[in-house]
């Protein structure tokens, strides 16, 4: 049974990634959105390097947050619309496992590319090089939590009106702690302080999310199918 479950788990991840690839440039699109939002800031704040450097970590985190949030809303929506969700709920594997597989696939196709591209953007915003490694670690610990928490929101909004805006409303407040610790980790290492406490908190949030979020998402999905 456990063997079957693990097999189904990977089967689902594989299918989600296949779908993402077939859909063409999904991950590309999110990375592009990330880049565009980051570019908006120098445009609106003005190009003074002092200010930009000062707020670069914040900009990258806010943009990452908005990108993940935007990519979130289709996580279950298309399955809901085309009837696949009914069948996934009726599958004999526990729904929590299925949700976790979808979340992992979501992170692999969205959060992960963001991490890869972020150093380039940090360079563009004149971030001090001493912050790069912390930025990468913080993003690696933070983006999976964003996906996990976002999945709850994505499940809750199924069948609602204005789902895009509604999702942001539900999910952004829950993202705020991750944003705060993510930014302050980078700021700490930019000012030569230890960023360990913040990173530990990010890690803790990730583990807590890993355990709790799939349950909540699965519960939300079940009620959405009613």
């Amino acid at each position: 049974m456990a063997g079957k479950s693990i097999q189904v788990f990977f089967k689902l991840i594989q299918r989600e990634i296949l779908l993402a690839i077939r859909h063409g440039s999904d991950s590309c699109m999110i990375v592009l959105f990330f880049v565009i939002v980051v570019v908006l800031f120098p445009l609106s704040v003005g190009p003074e390097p002092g200010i930009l450097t000062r707020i670069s970590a914040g900009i990258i985190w806010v943009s990452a947050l908005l990108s993940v949030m935007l990519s979130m809303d289709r996580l279950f929506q298309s399955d809901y619309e085309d009837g696949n969700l009914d069948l996934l709920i009726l599958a004999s594997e526990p729904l929590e496992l299925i949700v976790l597989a979808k979340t992992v696939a979501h992170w692999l196709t969205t959060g992960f590319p963001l991490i890869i591209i972020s150093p380039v953007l940090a360079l563009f915003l004149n971030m001090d090089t001493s912050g790069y490694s912390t930025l990468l670690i913080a993003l690696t610990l933070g983006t999976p939590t964003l996906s996990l928490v976002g999945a709850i929101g994505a499940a809750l909004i199924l069948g609602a009106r204005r789902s895009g805006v509604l999702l942001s409303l539900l999910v952004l407040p829950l993202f705020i702690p991750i944003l705060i610790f993510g930014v302050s980790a980078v700021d700490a290492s930019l000012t030569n302080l230890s960023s360990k406490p913040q990173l530990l908190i990010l890690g803790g949030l990730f583990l807590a999310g890993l355990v709790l979020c799939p349950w909540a998402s699965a519960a939300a999905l079940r009620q959405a199918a009613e």
Partner: protein
Amino acid sequence: MTSFSGKKLTCIRGERVVFNDLDFSINEGEVLYLKGPNGSGKSTLLRLMAGLLRPVNGTLTWNNKNIYQDEGLFRSLTHYVGHQDAVKTALTVEENLRFWAEMNSDIKEKSTVQKALQEFSLDSFSTLPARFLSAGQRKRLNLARLCTTWAPLWLLDEPSNSLDSDSVNVLTAAISTHQKKGGIVAIATHENLDVHSNSLDISMFTNFKIKSRDYDGW
């Protein structure tokens, strides 16, 4: 002998009582038609049978055991075909079917999927992306799921919608075969499929004059 039955089922949807005190029972090798005018609650009853909806009142039993006691097991015994076609348009016809076949069992051989496609004459489309399918072809792809893995209970919601006559024949043949193997089928439909069966008129349980006490203090 396998049997599937519901007792005193009451269902509320969108703050309305859809049906009340509904009993049904289906035994091995039987087909139950759900009949009734539009809006009488056929689709609702099927979703209830599948476990997608919960009744407000009443019990559903499989072999005299409440289905909510071991939901995982019950779900592995059911094939549900709803109004929507559960087709991923970006995947090919074969990939669509194969995914569900592999989700529902450990089958490895390609032949099962291929055979099901053949049965519903979709084999010539198997490598085509599903977005090219017409309404009836999608429905057929959805129905082909029934023939990939064995599940004793089939729940079909208007399965003959937009099917051409050849496909309807394939469907009735599949149902008859399933009957002979000892399966149980519940179908909501307005057309008469050529299958030996009982039928249940849902409109008998639909209480259009809702008594005010049902809603006391809602």
